[in-house]
C-alpha cells in the first residue's frame, strides 16, 4: 500500500473523528444556509422570467418584440429561409466561437470534438493526476493558474461569441464585387445577388465581408479550385453528401434556378489577380 494512500486513510479517519467530536448537526445549521441559498436561486429564476416576459411585447400579429432579455419566440421554423443566423444558447457560445479559430477541413475536428473531449478526459482524470494531499491554495499554484486560465478563456470566448457581429446582408457590395473581380454579367452576377442575401456570409467571408464561422473557407477565390458548376450545385444541394461531415446547411430549397446562378458566381470568383479570364 502506498504511503499516500495510508496518509489519506489516516486523514479521513481523523476527519470522521473531528466531525463527530466538534462538528455541528446538519439540521438546522447547514440546512439553514442551504435553504436561504435555494430561495435566492428560485427568486433569481422567477425574476429573470418576469423581466423576460414583462419587457417583451407581443405584437398584433402574435409575433414577439424583443425585451430586455430577448424575444419570447422567433418566427416559426422555416427550412426554406436561408438568411437565418444560427445561434446556440449562450453557454455554447464558447464552443461556437472556438470554431472560428479552427479552419475547415483540417482542424475543425479539433474544435468540435478534440478540445471538449480533452477537457472532459482531463476533468475525469484529475483526481488521479493530482494525488497530493495538499489542499491549501497557496501550495497549489498550478491548480490556481489552471482555474484562472480556464475561467478567463471561457469567459473571453463566451463574450466574443456573444458580441460577434453577424454576417449582414451585403447587397450593396454586389456592384463592387462584380467590378473588382470581373464577375461576368448574366447568371454569375445574378448569383452574386443571391449570394449576398442568402446568409452565406454568416459562415463565409467574401472579399473581407462576412464572419468566419464553423471553419468555413473564404470564398473570394473559390473559382480557382475549379470544382465545376455541377459540383457546386451538388454541394449546395447537400453539402454533407459531397463533403462528408460538412456542417454547412443544405440549400436545395433555393431552387435549381438559383442554385445554378450561385454556382456560376462561385466558379467566376477567382480573386483579383485571375479575375475574369476563365469565367463564363
Amino acid at each position: 500500500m502506498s504511503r499516500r494512500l495510508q496518509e489519506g486513510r489516516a486523514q479521513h479517519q481523523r476527519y470522521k473523528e473531528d466531525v463527530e467530536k466538534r462538528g455541528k448537526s446538519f439540521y438546522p445549521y447547514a440546512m439553514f444556509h442551504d435553504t436561504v441559498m435555494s430561495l435566492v436561486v428560485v427568486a433569481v429564476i422567477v425574476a429573470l422570467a418576469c423581466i423576460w416576459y414583462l419587457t417583451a411585447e407581443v405584437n398584433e400579429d402574435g409575433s414577439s418584440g424583443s425585451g430586455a432579455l430577448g424575444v419570447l419566440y422567433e418566427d416559426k421554423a422555416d427550412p426554406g429561409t436561408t438568411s437565418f443566423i444560427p445561434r446556440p444558447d449562450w453557454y455554447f457560445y464558447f464552443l461556437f466561437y472556438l470554431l472560428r479559430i479552427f479552419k475547415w477541413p483540417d482542424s475543425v475536428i479539433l474544435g468540435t470534438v478534440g478540445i471538449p473531449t480533452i477537457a472532459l478526459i482531463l476533468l475525469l482524470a484529475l483526481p488521479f493526476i493530482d494525488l497530493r494531499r495538499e489542499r491549501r491554495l497557496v501550495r497549489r499554484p498550478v491548480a490556481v493558474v489552471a482555474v484562472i486560465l480556464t475561467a478567463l478563456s471561457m469567459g473571453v470566448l463566451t463574450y466574443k461569441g456573444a458580441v460577434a457581429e453577424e454576417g449582414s446582408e451585403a447587397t450593396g457590395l454586389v456592384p463592387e464585387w462584380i467590378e473588382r473581380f470581373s464577375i461576368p454579367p448574366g447568371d454569375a452576377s445574378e448569383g452574386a445577388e443571391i449570394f449576398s442575401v442568402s446568409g452565406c456570409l454568416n459562415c463565409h467571408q467574401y472579399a473581407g465581408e462576412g464572419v468566419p464561422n464553423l471553419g468555413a473557407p473564404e470564398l473570394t477565390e473559390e473559382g480557382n479550385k475549379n470544382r465545376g458548376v455541377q459540383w457546386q450545385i451538388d454541394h449546395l444541394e447537400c453539402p454533407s453528401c459531397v463533403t462528408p461531415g460538412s456542417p454547412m446547411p443544405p440549400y436545395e430549397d433555393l431552387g435549381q434556378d438559383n442554385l445554378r446562378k450561385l454556382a456560376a458566381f462561385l466558379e467566376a470568383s477567382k480573386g483579383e489577380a485571375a479575375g475574369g479570364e476563365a469565367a463564363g
Partner: protein
Amino acid sequence: MAITPPPARRRKRRMDKVMPLVMMPVNWLEERSGLVGGLKYFLFRKVPSDINWFHTLGSATLTAFIVQAVTGVILAMYYKPHPDTAYESIRYITNEATLGWLVRGMHRWGASVFIILIFLHMARVFLFGAYKYPRELNWIVGVMLLPLAMLEGFTGYLLPWDQTAYWATVVGINLNGTGPVVGPFLAQFLRGGDEIGTDTLTRFYAMHMLLLPGAIMGLIGLHLYLVIRLGVSSPPWSKDAAGSEREERPSGDPGLVRPRARGRVAK
C-alpha cells in the same frame, strides 16, 4: 416569567393524547421501512463546523434542477411535439395559458441558472481540493453530470421550433457529424433521418424529458449518497479543518474515547 401552571398542565395532557396519534403512522412507517431513521440520520448527521456559504452551491444546483423538473412537467402537459403544432403550443403557453409565461420563463432561464451553478459548484470543489481521496468517485460522478446538463440545453433548444431553434440545431447536428468514425452515425441518429423534421423533434423531446433527466436524477442520487457517506470537506484554509494534522494529539487522546454516535440513528 409568569408561569400559569394550570393551562400548561392542560396543554401537556392534550399533548399526551395527541402525540401517540402523530407517532403511530411514523412508527408504522419506521418499523416497515427504516425510512424515518434514515431521514433522522440525514438531518442530524454531523458536518464540519467550519463549512460556509461556498458549500451551498451544491444544493443551489440541486434546487435549480428541481425547478427545471417541476416546470418541465407542467410544460409537457401543454407542449405538442410535432413540427405543425410545437410552435403553436409554445405560443399558446406563453400568451394564453394561465401563468404559462411564468412556467416557460422559469424553465428557460432556470436552464441558464442551472448551468452557471454547476460550473460554480465545480469550481468550488476544485478550489477546495475536495476531489481528493476519498472523494474521487464523487468528482467523477459530477463530471458526468456536466455534459448531461449541457445536452439538456442542446435538446431543449430545438423544442420551441422557431427559427433560432431550428437553425441552431441544423448546425449543431451537422457539427456532430464532423466527429471521427461515429460522427456521421450520431448525426443521423439525432436527426432520425436525413432531414430535420418530425422525427428529429420527437427524438429530441424524448431525450430532453426522459432519457437525460433520468440519467441526471440517477447520478444526482449517487452523488448525494456519496456526499452523505463521505461527508463534505472543510475549507482548506480553515485553521480548524476537520482531519487536519494537529500536534497536540497524543496517541491516548481521551477525546477519542467518547460515547458513540449520540442520537444518530433512532432505532
